[in-house]
Structures are given as structure tokens and as C-alpha cells.
């Protein structure tokens, strides 16, 4: 093939459809993520409404002190990371399992319907999920306690019991996200060359052997990429979920407070935009370092699959 002097321009010309397809996503990312980054300066300012973001006076690193002085920095960071790791592992395993099960299922209609039903929770708002949880677990009139009482058992007080919340949160996260991920993995499985399975059949491989030696290796790139992306957001709590599902409940805050809910709470109470931006910057910086680190690791093990 003839090489142009400007490989990028050449590429732009040759693959213009692909570039065009990328455009909407790029615009969204620039608008929603790159431009607002200018707001980072807020972390070093004492914000007032009149002078706005860029006009307010500078205060150096003063805004960062509050995050550490409140004694919360460690516990919210720990919660954020541990929850995300748990979500990542549990959801990934469930998603892959469901995807494989669905792909092995024969009935076309059954498959379609199951897939849609599993996907459905993804569209339910967290506010609604929060209301489900409240109606299930509230002490006086919740479904669970009403049921227990009708059996003559002692009602349980979920909202003041720290120990159960990690499980509830992991459960609702799976409820909402498994369907979505399943579809991604299913697409990836569908893409595996059918001849491989035919060959395996001829060699007399059973279903387990086919899954173990064809399906799983086949979807490895998807798994690695999704995993890498997830590492990047490991410092980011799913705000909606933590806020709505726990109802911002102070009784269990020690185990349910993540950086995002903490930041929002302090923003609402104090309206110190500078301080909360500082906490946000701390979070983003860590995320960034984690992505770099994870990518480096992948590069070492599987150079083909690294993001950059």
C-alpha cells in the first residue's frame, strides 16, 4: 500500500466512516469531561458566587486540610475501593456465567426473553431501587418484617445493622448491572469463530471442555479491557446507588460512606465548593494513577491487550 506523508490524514481519509462513528462519543467526552476539568482550579480557591470560578481568591492547599481533618479520608477511601473491587469481581463473574449459560441455551425465544428480563433492571432509576429497599426493610411496615411477624418471628432492624449493608449493596449492584454486562459478553461470545466449536465437536470435546478451552480464551480481550476500564473508576463510588439505597443513613455510615457521598454531603451542608472540589481532585488523581498502574501491569503480562 502506498504510504502518505501524513499517516494520520491518510487514515482519516481511508477510515472516515469509522472516525465519523467515533465523533459523537468524542464530542460528549470533550464537552462533559475535558471542558469541566477547568473547574479543578476551584480546589485551590475560596469560591464565592459573585466572582465565580475563575475570579475567586486563591487559598493554596487549605481546602485539602478539611478532608483529612474530618478523620474521614481513610474510611471513605477504603470503602470506595473495597466496594468497587467487590462489585467488579462479583459482577464480572456473574456476567460471564450468565453470558455462557445464555449462549449454550438452545431455545431462541427463551434466550431472547431471558436476556431482556435480565437487562431490564439497568433502566430502573436508583431512586426507585432505594424505594424498593426501604419498603422491603423498614422496621415497622417493611415487607420482610411483616413476613417475619406473620410467621411469629422477631422482626429485624436492617437500617441499624452495619453488617448487612455491604451484602445489600453488592446485591443491588448485581441486580442492576449483571444484565448489561451479560449482553456485552454474549456479543463477544457470538463473535467466536463457529468452526472452532465444530472442530472441537469432531474431536469429541464435551460442553465443559469447549467452554474452558474455546469460550473463555475467546472473550479474554473483552474481559481485560472492561477490567481495565473498571480499575479507572475504582475510586469513584456509584453516587446514586450509595445515596439512594442507603437513604444517607447515619447509622451505617461507617460502612456505606464513599468519597462521592461524603463530598455531596459536605457540599450540601457547607456549600464550600472549594473543599469539595479538593476532595474530588484527590479522588481523580488517585484514579488516574491507578489506571496507569493497571495498564502497566497488563502490558507486562499481555502486551496485546493494554489500552495504551
Amino acid at each position, binding site marked *: 500500500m502506498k504510504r502518505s506523508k501524513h499517516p494520520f490524514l491518510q487514515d482519516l481519509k481511508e477510515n472516515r466512516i469509522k472516525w465519523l462513528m467515533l465523533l459523537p462519543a468524542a464530542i460528549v467526552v470533550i464537552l462533559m469531561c475535558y471542558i469541566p476539568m477547568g473547574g479543578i482550579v476551584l480546589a485551590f480557591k475560596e469560591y464565592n458566587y459573585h466572582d*465565580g470560578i475563575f475570579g475567586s481568591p486563591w487559598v493554596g492547599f487549605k481546602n485539602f486540610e478539611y478532608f483529612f481533618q474530618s478523620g474521614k479520608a481513610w474510611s471513605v477511601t477504603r470503602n470506595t475501593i473495597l466496594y468497587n473491587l467487590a462489585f467488579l469481581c462479583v459482577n464480572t463473574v456473574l456476567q460471564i456465567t450468565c453470558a455462557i449459560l445464555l449462549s449454550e441455551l438452545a431455545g431462541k425465544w427463551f434466550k431472547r426473553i431471558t436476556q431482556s428480563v435480565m437487562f431490564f433492571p439497568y433502566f430502573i432509576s436508583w431512586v426507585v431501587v432505594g424505594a424498593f429497599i*426501604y419498603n422491603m426493610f423498614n422496621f415497622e411496615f417493611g415487607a420482610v418484617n411483616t413476613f417475619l411477624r406473620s410467621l411469629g418471628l422477631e422482626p429485624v432492624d436492617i437500617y441499624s445493622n452495619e453488617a448487612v449493608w455491604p451484602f445489600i449493596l453488592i446485591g443491588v449492584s448485581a441486580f442492576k448491572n449483571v444484565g448489561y454486562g451479560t449482553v456485552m459478553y454474549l456479543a*463477544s461470545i457470538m463473535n467466536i469463530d463457529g468452526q472452532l466449536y465444530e472442530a472441537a465437536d469432531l474431536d469429541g470435546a464435551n460442553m465443559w471442555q469447549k467452554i474452558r478451552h474455546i469460550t473463555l480464551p475467546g472473550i479474554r480481550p473483552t474481559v481485560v479491557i472492561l477490567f481495565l476500564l473498571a480499575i479507572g473508576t475504582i475510586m469513584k463510588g456509584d453516587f446514586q446507588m450509595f445515596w439512594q439505597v442507603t*437513604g444517607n443513613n447515619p447509622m451505617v455510615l461507617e460502612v456505606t460512606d464513599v468519597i462521592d457521598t461524603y463530598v455531596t454531603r459536605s457540599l*450540601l451542608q457547607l456549600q464550600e465548593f472549594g473543599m469539595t*472540589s479538593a476532595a474530588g481532585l484527590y479522588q*481523580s488523581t488517585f484514579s488516574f494513577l491507578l489506571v496507569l498502574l493497571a495498564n502497566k501491569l497488563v502490558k507486562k503480562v499481555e502486551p496485546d491487550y493494554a489500552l495504551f
Partner: protein
Amino acid sequence: MKKTAKLLALVLALVLVVSAFTGCGGTTVSSSTAPASGASGSGTSGPDISEEVTLTMYLIGDRPVDNDKVFEKINERLKEEINATIDVKYMSWSEYEQKYPLIFASGEDWDMIFTADWCFYNAQASKQGFWEITPEALETYAPMTAESMYPEAWEQAKVDGKVYMLPMNYQELTAYVWMARGDLMDKYGIESLDTFEGAEQYMQAIVDNEPSMIPLDVGSDYDRQFVFDLLWNVKSYARDDGNYAVLPPVNLITCVQENDPEANVMSTLDADIFMDTLNTVKDWRDRGFWSRNAVVNTQNNTESFQAGKSALAVMNINTAKSLYATLQAEHPEWDVRVFDAMNGAPATIQSYLANGMSIFSKSKNPERALMALDYLRNDEICHNLFCYGIEGVHWEAVGDHGLKSLPDSSNYAYDSNCNWGVRNDQFWRTVEGGIPNSEELTENWKETARSGRYITFVFDDSEVKNEVAAISEIYNSDYKLLQLGFTDDPAGDVEKLKAKLDAAGVDVLQEAFHTQAQAFLESHPE
């Protein structure tokens, strides 16, 4: 083949990324606001009203059904007088704490807002969220207000020597009352709730006999502190050597003995009445007087009472007045009764800042907004429309200072439309046929009512922001639990809380409070 698979995986991943980024604004909410667009005041010399403007006014509460009808009339008048009309937006009680600060930062175009010492006045004023009202501006654009404003009110409204609010022109007495269901009281033979014993008996009777009801369904919002505050006040005034004053803002949990000339501030946890108060709320919670999930309940106790889910509500007398009228119309069979909950503690004469109106610092027409406020406060037609509704539809006059609510008032109830910031003694009317024992209640309170020694004290937190942030966090989590009696080991939990406060730098905070309180006592001799 492998290449295609990888590409597909990548595209899918991109889709995921894009969908994930829709939530990307979360922590950077503030950064999407437009930067300041120059100074807000324009240099006009006299009221120039040639250009017609629409002013946006934010109020707190649920939009009354007849809001538009009432404001149509107000706008007719304003259009004629100052060539402006008002467009009203409401933010509900359940969301105002979140929404209020955000509309200042949102870059939205609006002009006026309800404010109060309990509703972000100091916080927004010190962040330059409000347009400064200078005496000259008042003279020029609000001559009627300049004439009628109580001088004390003007003084109270000063933040760092500048005024950002038009406080109500109205002296308000507040005290807590119980609102109870007469039908249930009769059923269980409860005579009166004037004492805590009566209230306890009543709530116990509900716990024992009405499994579908919660006696006092306090929520986690602003009403969470009512019961604690009430008990605290009663115990505080019963002390022999002087009562405690909780210094504003309450989220810094600092108090001082009112008659202490040295103004030795302390944490409320260290006050001798704290444990006693805590034990009472704990006892009440343990007996099931409020929900075990009160801390996640976002409905406040008056809403729950109105919905028939609870048998008792605690509120201040002014809320009770309007709620009573509504409930009499909606549920006459409940036979709603109101009792003095103060148990001998004096009622409070509110600071004028308890209600007021302010102008947004980035309003495009601050002068016209000031003129509009001038009319809402001082023009009898506008004032009465805003406060009581349309005469002949929602109310009719009884004498010079009374009014009778008409059936339609359920669509625009008396004095409950967030009109409190424009209340004016000059035009004030009280409801006839309101709470039957209203006179008696007010008589009791009038004799003892007092405004606290520190009611106009304003804490300047600019030097201790980090401590304020850390301690507010404690107030809204651990302290909130104690206020609602959520503790199994009061003494132990209080000790833990004290340790947390120490770590958060309570010493530094109290030092600042002490210095400022001393200065306040010197500049405000009794």
C-alpha cells in the same frame, strides 16, 4: 478474526465508557457554572421603569393550587405600578436544603428568593450570593420600606456591616405546640397534653393500641431536632443558675450559659442537662414513639400527621395555625386539638431575620426586584394577596385585624405560601375560627416571652473553616442519631463523640467562639 473480535470489544467498551460518562458531572457540578459576568449593579440614577421585566422569585414549599390566580392579580398591580411581573418558582420542603445552595451556583437566571437566618442567609451572604441593599438603594427603589422598616431589623440583617436582606416587618412569637387527634384522645381517655406526662401517656396508648400508626413520626429533616430542642429548652430553663443558649449556627453544637459574663462557651455535650435530655429521647425512642427508621424517613412529622399515619405532631405555633385550618376542613372527624408543649419554658421572640427576602447577586434587574419587594411588603393590595390570597375567594375581612378563611382557602391557605418574608404588622390579620385555644396559648407565652441574649450573635467562621466542616459532618451523622435517641449506651456514645470532636479540632472552634462571644457581650450590653 481475532482482530475483528478485538475491534468489536473496543467499540463495545467505548459504548460503555460513553454511557458511564453521562454520570461524569457528579463531582464537578460546580464547575459547569458560568463564570461571573461582570458587576451586577448598573449605574442608573433614578427608577427607570420604561422596559418591562419579568422577575423570577424562588419560594420554599409546595406550589399552592391557586398560586397562579393569586399572582395574576399581584402582577396586574405590579405591571401598573412598576412595569414588572413576577414568575414564582417553588422548591419543596423535602429538597430545599439541597436545592437552595445549588441554584446560586447553577448559572440560572433568577432575581429574588426567600431567605432567613435558618435558611442559608449568612452562608449565602458571606459568599456574595446576595445583592447588597445599601441605604441609598433603599431610599431610591424602596421608599415605603425605608420608612416602615424597624431599625432593629435593619441592624440585625447586617453581615460584616452590609445588608443583604429585607427582613419581615413583623414581630413573631414562636413556641412549640403539640397537635393531637381529639378522637384518639377521647378513645383512650387522655385529658390533656399540656405536660410531658400527658404526652407520654397519649403516645404510649397509641403504641399499645394502634399498631398501624406511629405516635410521633419525626423525620430526618429539619424536624428531627424539634423534640430534642424542646426537651433541652425545658430542662435548660428549669436550672437554678441560668439557662443555656445554643449559639448559632446550631450545627457547631456550641452553647454558653446566658448569664455568664465571661461567655465561657462549651460543647452542648458538656452541658449538665445533655445526658438528661438524651436519656428522655432515648426512652421515647425505645418505647417506639417514633420509627426505628426515623433517620432515613424523609417525610416530616406534620406531613405524616396530615396523612393520618401518625397520631401526634410537634411544630411551632405558626405552622400549627395554618395546618389546623386545613385539617379542620379535610378531616373534621379527627377533632384536631392543639396543646402548649413548652412545659413552662418561655416562648421566643423571633429575630426579624426569621423570615425575609433577598435579591440574587447576579440578578439582571436588582433594582426592579427591590421595587417589587417594596410593593409586596408595603402595598396593602399586594401584601394581602400574597399572604392571604384573593379577597372574596380565599378569605374575607372581619373587622380591621381579622379575617375568615373561605372554603377555597384549601387552594391558597392563610399565611402558608412562603409569604413570611413580606409579612407586615401594619396590614396583619389573624384568622377567626382558628385554633380555639389560640388566645389562651398566646396569653401564657406573652408574659414570659423573651428574645435570647445571643439571638443576634453571628459567628464569623472564616478563620476556622476546616473545623467547621469537620464538626458539621459530626453534627449531621453521629449527633443527629443522638438527637433522635438512637443509642444503646448513652454514656459510652457520648464519650466516643467527644473524642471525635476533639480530633476534629473543637478546641480551636471554641476558642474562636469564645473570643467572638466576649466581643459580642461588650458591644451589646444588656
